[in-house]
């Protein structure tokens, strides 16, 4: 309303508001749906966004990095053994004269693939197992949880070692070995969440209305554990990369000439006294990647579950 109007009508202020739209929510902040709101919160988190950008760059480099160096990652050169970083070899060369820049990105490819694929497998397995166990409850739950307890009582690293001893070497076997124990935690968590959700009134209500178990899972349980799943997947990546590095360290990881950051760290560690640069680059890369995944995971958790935010 304009001031002119106010003056013409002497008692305008004390007339009933002709705009009869009551409960005008328009003046409050626009309401966003869950994902929009989460995205808005994520965007505000500069650290998480920064971590995401670094990750995209690293992933980009693992795809295109090997081709810009002009060296193949398997190409050996007896004249160029253990050379420090130079214009020709940006990260130096290893004891077989292979270009470490190229190898670093090829290794990164392996590490990240193992980390990401492993995390997805872990979460999917855990989701199915935990979901079934929690949803059906009762005896099924008891038996399924007992199995998990037994599997969980063998230390994860030992289980991984045992499994990788049985399987033929190679990246798929590595993923199998690494995920054999990793899904347990996810399964337990999903089960806990499902048990909790099951008791919630909206689930009871739809069950009372005769909804099938499948539709209840689809309509109510999955959307509610979705945020947990996304966060879990992100924060599992670094732990899988770590496990892979551990296996490479004890000689059960990827086999030469293929490599991974873990394997490069292991090789570099052996010559730390003489050629520290061989350790520095894979170390920085693996640490930075793990840090970024963790930061991104934290950011996602804060964004997706405002209740958890402190």
């Amino acid at each position, binding site marked *: *309303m304009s001031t002119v109007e106010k003056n013409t009508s002497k008692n*305008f*202020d*004390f*007339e*009933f508001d002709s705009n009869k739209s*009551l*409960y005008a*929510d328009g*003046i409050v902040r626009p309401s966003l749906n869950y994902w929009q709101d989460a995205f808005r919160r994520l965007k505000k988190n500069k650290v998480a966004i920064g971590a995401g950008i670094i990750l995209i760059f690293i992933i980009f480099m693992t795809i295109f990095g090997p081709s810009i160096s002009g060296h193949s990652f398997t190409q050996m050169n007896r004249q160029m053994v253990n050379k420090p970083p130079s214009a020709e070899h940006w990260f130096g060369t290893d004891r077989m004269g292979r270009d470490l820049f190229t190898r670093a990105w090829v290794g990164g490819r392996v590490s990240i693939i193992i980390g990401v694929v492993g995390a997805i497998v872990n979460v999917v397995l855990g989701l199915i197992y935990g979901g079934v166990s929690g949803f059906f409850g009762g005896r099924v739950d008891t038996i399924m949880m007992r199995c998990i307890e037994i599997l969980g009582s063998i230390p994860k690293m030992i289980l991984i070692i045992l499994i990788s001893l049985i399987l033929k070497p190679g990246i798929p076997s590595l993923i199998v070995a690494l995920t054999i124990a990793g899904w347990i935690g996810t399964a337990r968590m999903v089960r806990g969440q499902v048990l909790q959700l099951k008791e919630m009134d909206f689930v009871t209500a739809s069950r009372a209305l005769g909804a099938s178990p499948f539709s209840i899972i689809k309509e109510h349980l999955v959307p509610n554990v979705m945020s947990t799943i996304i966060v879990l997947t992100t924060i599992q990546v670094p732990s899988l990369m770590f496990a892979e590095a551990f296996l490479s360290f004890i000689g059960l990881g990827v086999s030469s000439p293929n490599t991974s950051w873990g394997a490069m760290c292991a090789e570099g560690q052996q010559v730390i006294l003489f050629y520290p640069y061989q350790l520095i680059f894979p170390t920085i890369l693996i640490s930075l990647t793990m840090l970024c995944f963790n930061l991104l995971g934290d950011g996602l958790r804060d964004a997706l579950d405002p209740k958890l935010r402190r």
Partner: protein
Amino acid sequence: MMEKILEVKDLNVSFNTYAGEVQAVRGVSFDLKQKECLAIVGESGSGKSVTAKAIIKLIHDPGVIKKGSSIKYLGEELANKNFDQMRKIRGSEISMIFQDALTSLNPTKKVGHQVAQSLIIHQKMGKREAFDKAVEMLRFVKIPNPERRANQYPHEFSGGMRQRAMIAMALVNKPNILIADEPTTALDVTIQAQIIDLLKDMQEELNTAIVMITHDLGVVAGSADRIAVMYGGMIVEQGPKKEIFYRPKHPYTWALLNSVPRLNTKSKETLYSIKGTPPDLIQPPLGCPFAPRCEFRLNICNEKMPTAYPIIEGHDAKCWLLDERAPKVKVFERLEV
């Protein structure tokens, strides 16, 4: 005229969240007289609980009691006191009980020891003596078999018994003021009545004044002497119980009273509900916070918050309809269904 023991003036409490500053309490003023029961009524998010906690300064980071707020207890300003000075008042002069006794009692400590705690702190009693006194207090709040109960943990108590233990804990030092934050909300209806009765008995016997925070007008009807109605972080109307129940002046109070289910309501009528949602306290409206939901909204309501219009001694309301320039609204009939 009885002596005022608590005077709250222009209380402002804000919470600095990542979404912005939430102005939970905006300029609340009220008095409490000796032996009086003041009920602060409002829906969730109206700032009533924050007001209650602010009285004994239990507002924690990120919440702050803003400068200029005044909380006078027996003429003594509490707003400037630091933690250690407040400590001497909490639990001895002013006590507080909370909505859910299950979460408000320490799960790892025996109930008797929890009740004894205040005695040890404020009366410098020995452990043994305090515990015996605590047992007495549990008996006083009518917990059967108090000797055995005192040695149990909170989770071994039923809901009603827990709330009784909570009350025993708060009243063990015979405080002048008891702040009861939704003391019956988490309880069954039958237990609610018992707890309200217990609070009334205690008020009689110990001469305690009560600030009762609730959203339940049934609770208010049973216990309060005076009522303050809160909306959007402000007190929109306050007055003696009878005035508020029979001569309410604020449209929010009308709506609130209308939404109480009654037995004599004709069966075909649907239960009255207040449409819309409470205001966003991050961006509080310039005008009256209730305006967007008010059926009698004037143009000015959108722009300016009215000051309190006195009705009679002790009864005032913040509503433009009470201005002499405003059209007269007959609403009273609406209430008498």
